[in-house]
């Protein structure tokens, strides 16, 4: 704690934070009153701590709350359900959720890129996987169409985003479910892509009703810079390929 004459820095830190017992604290105070070196050290420590206290809070962008809510809302709805949840959720999405629960862990685990199992025996799991593949494929197609629309939107002043916002909002919930399934199944690349897609969808869902041409240019640049459209297309193709491989051959029952 101390050497023969002076307190070390750690001891002064404990004193500063009031972590010493009453006896040690009193002893320290007495020593500080009589020792110029330790008093100077302690004063410097106090100044360092005072400087740390001046650290301003991080600056958050306007609309932070909107984005937070857009990301949070689907999880809240899923966790226990607002009363209106079952009324508002599209039937196909509720079905997809149920299917996801059934096949989580069995679907993503390497199957998108792996060799399909024998196609001559169709199990209940494979049936569910087919349904899920169809759902995921449709989701990717819808996302792809939206990205294409955004990238190719005419650049003419203010753009009405109300329809795109709704589209993005619809896609966020489904995307989140697929992303979580990919995450739980350890399918890292799929999860990363869906995560990237979700961030964009969330921002779009939380965007104002209109975007300036400059804002639109930023959205397009974001899609281009990350090659998002290309990656979604590749994954969509992989899903479709997998669907083809899963299809029963002629003469086989399904």
């Amino acid at each position, binding site marked *: 704690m101390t*050497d023969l*004459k*002076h*307190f*070390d*820095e*750690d001891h002064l*830190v*404990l004193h500063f*934070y009031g*972590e010493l017992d009453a006896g040690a604290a009193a002893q320290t105070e007495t020593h500080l009153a009589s020792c110029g*070196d330790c008093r100077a*050290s302690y004063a*410097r*420590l106090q*100044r*360092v*701590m005072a*400087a*740390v206290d*001046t*650290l*301003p*809070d*991080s600056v*958050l962008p306007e609309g*932070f*709350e909107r984005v*937070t*809510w857009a*990301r*949070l*809302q689907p*999880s*809240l*709805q899923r*966790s*226990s359900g*607002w*009363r*209106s949840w079952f009324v508002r959720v599209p039937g196909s999405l509720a079905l997809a959720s149920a299917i996801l629960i059934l096949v989580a862990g069995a679907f993503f685990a390497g199957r998108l890129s792996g060799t399909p199992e024998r196609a001559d025996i169709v199990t209940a799991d494979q049936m569910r996987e087919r349904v899920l593949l169809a759902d995921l494929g449709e989701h990717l197609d819808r996302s792809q169409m939206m990205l294409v629309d955004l990238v190719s939107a005419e650049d003419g002043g203010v753009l009405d985003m109300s329809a795109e916002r709704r589209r993005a909002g619809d896609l966020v919930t489904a995307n989140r479910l697929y992303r979580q399934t990919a995450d739980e199944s350890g399918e890292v690349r799929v999860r990363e892509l869906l995560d990237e897609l979700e961030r964009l969808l969330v921002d779009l869902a939380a965007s104002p009703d209109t975007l300036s041409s400059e804002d639109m240019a930023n959205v397009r640049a974001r899609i281009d810079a990350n090659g998002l459209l290309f990656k979604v297309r590749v994954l969509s193709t992989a899903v479709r390929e997998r669907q083809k491989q899963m299809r029963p051959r002629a003469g086989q029952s399904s």
Partner: protein
Amino acid sequence: MPQTDAAAVALARGGDSEAFHSLVDRHSRAVYRLAYRMTGSPHDAEDVVQETFLRAYKQLGRFESRANFGTWLHRIAVNCSIDLIRSRPHRETAHDGTDLEQFGAAVERNDRAGASPERLMMSTEVHERIAAAMTGLSAMERAAFMLRHFEGRSINEISQSLGLKTNAAKHSIFRAVRKMRIALEPFVAEPAARGSLIADH
């Protein structure tokens, strides 16, 4: 939108999503700021915000209506940040001093790169230096220091929260303070006195 947090909580408990939305609007910035201080990462802070409100929503039934919602949420956010930090592999603080030396050398390089005492006195630069020093802290050092310095938690509480031995928690704080001191010494001491706070000891 409900006028008070208490009213919003009461409505949210009854299934009113807009009431909960209003709570998110009022408190999400504060939660983010706390989470960012604790984790040092914007992405982690965003995740903590999500997890905090999700837990709060699930636990609304347990919230005492006479309590302060902001304080209750703050506690949840601290716990979420701690859970996130603990979920990551980490080493308990090493004591070889190597990273402190590297840290000190980096600070010296920055000083030589043109930070005159006059410039350094500018508050924006002070803040930049603090922020830079924060990034030099390990996850555990940062969490322990934030809990001690900004949250007023005792070292015993911190060691329990972070799953560290008391000495490890203590040394995480000591090392964090040393790094802060090295980074900030130009602002709080004469240039000639720069160096160890206790060089003569």
